[in-house]
């Protein structure tokens, strides 16, 4: 019950402040739109680099938003209440990550077909894009949460979180983009999707626990 309350509370608060969930989305769209301007507007070229563009943009956008996962809570003292509450911190943290994903990643996934359209992706590739984002963004949130929890007590850390977390994002990036490459070559995607799902489940199993441990360390600074 408490878990559901936390999820509902987080989602409502974020939805009522429109810019809280709109900023990562707009950032995502703008970064993707920069590439045709920077590289080349030529359709075939764009289609070739589209997987990389969309995945890197999604990754950056999540890094930007995950930074604030525990920030507000740490400032208002809500985090101390979470740590003191009789519920398992792992589950509470899992709920917070889940609601973060709903608010900040789901809009990215919903708008990604439109971006695929802008970058000349075929329907099959767009389908692969949505599937991989659906499986990959939870991993990015879960791993990012560990870093955000470690840095929760550090006053001004600026770009430190990307430095900590980016190397851990590499497998997701590789498998995400190569699924799209396979889709571009009209290959079956089952194997790729299975690996992405394995990454998701693996991080789902370990990351909330590690995030809870990191929060206990981070708060004490």
């Amino acid at each position: 019950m408490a878990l559901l309350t936390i999820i509902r509370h987080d989602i409502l608060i974020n939805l009522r402040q429109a810019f809280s969930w709109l900023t990562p989305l707009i950032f995502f769209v703008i970064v993707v739109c920069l590439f045709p301007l920077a590289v080349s507007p030529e359709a075939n070229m764009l289609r070739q680099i589209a997987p990389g563009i969309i995945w890197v943009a999604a990754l950056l956008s999540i890094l930007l938003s995950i930074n604030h996962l525990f920030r507000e809570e740490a400032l208002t003292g809500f985090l101390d209440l979470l740590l003191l509450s009789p519920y398992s911190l792992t589950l509470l943290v899992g709920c917070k990550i889940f609601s973060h994903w709903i608010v900040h990643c789901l809009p990215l996934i919903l708008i990604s077909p439109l971006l695929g359209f802008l970058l000349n992706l075929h329907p099959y590739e767009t389908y692969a894009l949505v599937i991989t984002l659906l499986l990959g963004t939870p991993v990015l949130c879960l791993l990012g949460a560990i870093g955000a929890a470690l840095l929760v007590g550090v006053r001004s850390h600026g770009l430190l979180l990307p430095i900590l977390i980016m190397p851990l994002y590499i497998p997701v990036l590789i498998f995400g983009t190569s699924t799209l490459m396979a889709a571009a070559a009209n290959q079956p995607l089952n194997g790729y999707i299975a690996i992405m799902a394995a990454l998701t489940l693996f991080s789902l199993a370990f990351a909330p626990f590690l995030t809870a441990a990191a929060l206990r360390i981070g708060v004490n600074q």
Partner: protein
Amino acid sequence: MLHWFNQKFLSPKLFYTTTTRLLPWVGGAFAVCFFYGLITGLFIAPADYQQGDGFRIMYVHVPSAFVAMAIYMTMACSAFVTLVWRVKMAAICMSCSASIGAWFTFLALVTGSIWGKPMWGAWWVWDARLTSVLILFFLYIGFIALQSVITDPQSRDRAGALLAIVGVINLPIIHYSVIWWNTLHQGPTISKFASPSIAPDMLYPLMAMILAFFLFYFWILMLRMRNQIVLREIKSQWVSEVMQHG
């Protein structure tokens, strides 16, 4: 029993006094191995039939890559000990290892690129192995960056330990995904040069160099840990005694 072990062998004071006696021996052993490896490797070992004398950079490159990876494992093990048993010495060992490991990784990357230029024709190729060493370097940098921003020593140790453990869980995943990525994107344009089982004349210097690099790591690690111990325990009685008597 664990408590007793903690008191007797992992106490900073005992570590300090033991290493005072140990340091010259480790340094001496390093010097012997290093000069043996250097002289036999650079002058006595026969030139490679394909690469000529160019292969001799192997005697720096291979040991540094080897030690760079071993140091990350050492860090992960001490991170585990830090988190589970809260042993202070393990935390010191971990944070002192990080920058040594980063430098060895850097050395491996630089020597690899110097070796790659004449052999592959490019300073850098996005080969799977090179890429994963580069990512290892980033992991080291992240660890050092995290440690540098946290001021409280105890949470610095524990936060670093957690990051090192997360890194070591991810390291195999990263490694295999990078291998997979490279085989997917491009065919083997650069096949790893066919390595006939290495001749003993070349092998012994290599073993000596690997041993020498490990001894060097232990040597520097001990020196750095001693500094760290003195810094952390600056107010205690034994430190001022040691400092006064040299």
